[in-house]
């Protein structure tokens, strides 16, 4: 198996799906001639032409809304927001339209749409360009929200997202594009809505996803050297949330730490902790810990920004408080 980057895995998934289904097309700012702001669609404009790789004006509202309309009318659009921060401008199109269309009209419509959006902090881009707002989008029934952490999952889940008949927000953490991992040649699908145990262990359950998953795995390796074996569960999909592997793991370890890059308040950690105490109260041995972004906007200055973000040391410290 080849070790490729997450960027390459995403590119491969898009290219294979474009060849597989004529209804699939890409639209967004700088996706065509430029080759994609993060170079995920490099070469696509020449390969597929302007009909299927469509550069748009800087118009997030209509990028979101037109993608919904095209999906309603039988195409399978992949609309790209240059970053998830600009998807805020299209919040109405995503939440009021993509996610509500089917329900509000009694099942008459389907919206087979993928919204791709790179996101995340840690790149000194300042407060408006560094958000990890995944949980905000995951709040609403009607939308599927996924964010993979490995090249293997990235390729398989992007294919699943393109093939499902429901709208999917596909969040790519920008610092993961360079991460390498083993990816088999050819076609495979990783289903949406299935959490995955990425490392087995017996002493504590670490729940994470996306960039947080990479941090959690690195922390688990260090902890192992000190004799603490962490089990790491990758959520992969935030909605619909698959709690079964989390609860199964917790029934073995009786302790949990949730790692997420977004802010702590009202976050993924809050949700997972609530679900564990509701559905696994008898197994609860210690407070459930949350490792998350500090409650401040992200600053530019490097050290200051890093101090607000999650890291391996913070995860290790949280684990040691309860193990």
């Amino acid at each position, binding site marked *: 198996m080849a070790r490729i980057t997450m960027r390459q895995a995403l590119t491969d998934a898009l290219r294979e799906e474009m060849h597989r289904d004529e209804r699939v097309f890409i639209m967004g700012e700088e996706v065509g001639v430029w080759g994609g702001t993060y170079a995920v669609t490099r070469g696509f404009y020449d390969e597929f032409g302007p009909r299927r790789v469509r550069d748009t004006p800087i*118009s997030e509202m209509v990028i979101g809304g037109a993608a919904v309309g095209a999906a309603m*009318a039988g*195409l399978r659009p992949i609309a790209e927001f240059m970053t998830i921060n600009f998807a805020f401008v299209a919040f109405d199109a995503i939440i009021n339209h993509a996610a509500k269309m089917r329900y509000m009209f009694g099942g008459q419509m389907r919206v087979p749409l993928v919204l791709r959006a790179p996101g995340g902090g840690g790149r000194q881009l300042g407060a408006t360009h560094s958000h990890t707002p995944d949980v905000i989008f995951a709040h609403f029934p009607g939308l599927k929200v996924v964010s993979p952490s490995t090249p293997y999952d990235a390729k398989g889940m992007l294919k699943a997202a393109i093939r499902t008949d429901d709208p999917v927000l596909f969040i790519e953490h920008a610092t993961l594009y360079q991460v390498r991992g083993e990816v088999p040649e050819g076609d495979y699908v990783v289903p949406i809505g299935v959490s995955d145990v990425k490392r087995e262990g017996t002493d504590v359950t670490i729940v994470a996803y996306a960039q947080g998953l990479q941090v959690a795995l690195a922390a688990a390796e260090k902890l192992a050297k000190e004799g603490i074996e962490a089990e790491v569960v990758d959520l992969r999909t935030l909605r619909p949330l698959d709690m079964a592997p989390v609860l199964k793991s917790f029934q073995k370890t009786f302790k949990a730490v949730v790692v997420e890059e977004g802010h702590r308040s009202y976050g993924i950690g809050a949700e997972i902790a609530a679900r564990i105490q509701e559905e696994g109260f008898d197994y609860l041995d210690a407070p459930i810990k949350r490792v998350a972004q500090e409650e401040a906007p992200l600053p530019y200055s490097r050290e200051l920004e890093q101090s607000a973000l999650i890291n391996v040391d913070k995860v290790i410290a949280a684990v040691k408080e309860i193990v």
Partner: protein
Amino acid sequence: MDKETILDWYRQMVLIRRFEQRCSELYQAGKIGGFLHLYIGQEAVAVGSINAKQENDHVITAYRDHGHALVIGSDTNAVMAEMLGKSTGVSKGKGGSMHLADVERRFWGGHAVVGAHLSLATGIALAEQYQGTDAAVLCYFGDGATNIGYFHESLNLSGVWDLPVLWICENNQYGMGTAVERHTAATNIMQKASGYDIPAAQVDGMDVFAVHEATQKALAAIRNGEGPQFLEIMTYRFEGHSMGDPLRYRTKEEVEKWREDDPIGILERHILAENLASKDELEAIDTAVETHLDEAVNFAESSPLPAPEELFTDIYVEN
């Protein structure tokens, strides 16, 4: 225009008017909830324009959508049932007055966020262009909607991509209680289209023939490869913005003056003057419409409410 067609347009306009009068009563009786926006006064717009479309064209509009649904040919029973929130409604009782749709007839709703559906129309038009068909999209919106970003982004993109969409502004002189002169800098709304190099025309919306002719012309231009087109249709809503509107923003005199141009009255006078039908024949049409609506109200009232488990259906295609 043959006599049968004209009498059928008359019937459609009367159907909208009387349907909404029933709705108004049902609302006051507490049987219709939520917001209810009447189309009374604007009937000639939906009737004139939708009757000019070809079979495979699409229609999409805002929340003031009863007229469009009825002219499209949606089952009156199912439309009325939707008003009452019944499981037999066009949207299974999940949408209500503002969210009527009939996808089989290519009617995509009924949308309640002002301007948002212009972006949906843009996407539907893109789907048709992508597939190489000759279908166009008729997208209706109010004068107030021309101030939101969606309007400008959608017109621009339709121009950049040459999409087969007919933008139809139903200028009824107000967005809720704010008159055109108070809500938009360019009060000659059709001018806004020229900012995106889209050909535009202004039409008398009380004259069903004028609306029909302008729509035909615009659709022909679209199918002739001339890109998106824009119509500003001058009209007036005789009732409030929605039920319970205190109507503090306009005078009784102003409303009375517009009512002299009642689009149904204008058509009726035309029919009589041209000897297309007698007064008795028109009354027979009115009576048939009332009978049809008696049935619809009966059907809606006797239909079951959505089953409790319906709360969780239609959220996703694949669970």
